[in-house]
């Protein structure tokens, strides 16, 4: 089996990993780099649980080959902030009760971040459109839209 050396920035840290062509970015993140905050949902681009920022834009890591990340920058929800220093979106999701089981949250926040970077003051409809590729099986959409709307004025692209 041919292996391909892949180098990319993961949440700001350079990583180097040998992958097979058939390894998805999602598997590589979870199983080789232990970025288990990225969730494996449907595996075919419907649910958005596996969304990560690839060079600043949300993509489904389940439909991205690890080799395609070579030389790029990957940001997961963990790269946005942590318990001690949360990103305004993370804070807002907690404060607004936009997290129920939490499985969709990592992807939702990544999609929201991708939206706010392009459109810092989105309307509720624009927010709905931006997270339409992220399914919440707890159906907590109302709180999620509110949380993103609330966080928007507090975010800057450098966050």
């Amino acid at each position, binding site marked *: 089996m041919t292996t391909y050396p892949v180098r990319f920035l993961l949440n700001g840290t350079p990583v180097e990993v040998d992958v097979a062509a*058939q390894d998805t970015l999602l598997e590589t993140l979870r199983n080789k780099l232990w970025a288990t905050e990225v969730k494996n949902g449907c595996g075919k681009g419907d649910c958005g649980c596996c969304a990560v920022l690839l060079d600043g834009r*949300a993509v*489904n890591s389940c439909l991205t080959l690890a080799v395609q990340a070579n030389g790029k920058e990957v940001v997961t929800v963990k790269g946005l902030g942590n318990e001690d220093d949360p990103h305004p979106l993370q804070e807002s999701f907690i404060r607004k009760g936009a997290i129920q089981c939490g499985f969709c949250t990592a992807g939702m926040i990544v999609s929201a971040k991708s939206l706010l970077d392009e459109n810092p003051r989105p309307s509720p409809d624009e927010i709905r459109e931006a997270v339409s590729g992220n399914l919440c099986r707890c159906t907590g959409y109302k709180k999620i839209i509110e949380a993103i709307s609330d966080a928007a004025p507090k975010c800057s692209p450098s966050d």
Partner: protein
Amino acid sequence: MNTRILKAEFDYFAPASIGEALALIAQNGPTARFIAGGTDLLVQMKLETVAPGCLISLMKISELSVLKREKGFLRIGAAVTWDRILAFGSEDRSYPALDDAVRCLGKVQVRRMGTIGGNLCTASPAADSAPALLVYDSRVRLVSARGRRTLLLDKYFLGVQQTARAADEIMTEIRIPAPRPDVGGAFQKLARVGADISKISCAVAVERKGRVCVSCRVAMGAVAPVPLMIRGVPEFLQEKTVTASLLVTAGRMISDEIRPITDVRSTAEYRKQVAGVLFRDVFQKAWTRAGGEP
């Protein structure tokens, strides 16, 4: 049904030029496949409906990412992603039917990865871009070791996921003629939720002069083995004064012309019933966009 991992092993190449890509497809034999955004092919590979021995990515070939107006055409490189086409369409309103189609084609992440060439090469009868591109009389450019050729999109689709493109041919770009003035276009699909695969879709481009339909083109998705160019209605409507009853008749003609099947998304009967209504809605929208009284 596994959609978690890609089980089968394969080789992967990401050439930077068309010449290199053509050499790779020749070297790697009949199981080699080109891949663009991968939003469809990788799902099919997970489901093991296809098992390429080698994937040749086209995403690093700069020639395939052109997006510009030139000599009376809009040139869209085959590897241009939907989000770029959407951004282009919000500035240039020349192709509203295409714009409508891209807006309901997949969701944000899929639009960032999926490409127009990929959609046409997958050639699903329900491909949302196809009816819109058909009504604008688009052409596709193909290249292989044997040379380059241009095909009318109308002649390109041959069957369910079957096209005139040979396995060793690369789709390089889609060319859409600049529309004449007074042409309005629209596209609409019926689906369970927005980004679902269509139960049925319809695109119309109509040139109007006051209340007269000078000419029109109509295409539908998910009603036949190929994205279907409707033949009867354009002739019927040509140079006629458009009235509600005329459109009802045209809608009935469409229901008669299409050849839908029953599948998980809809029944043939429903598709036939709703086709005429959908056509009237889309025609009305295109008609209004062409300017003048609704």
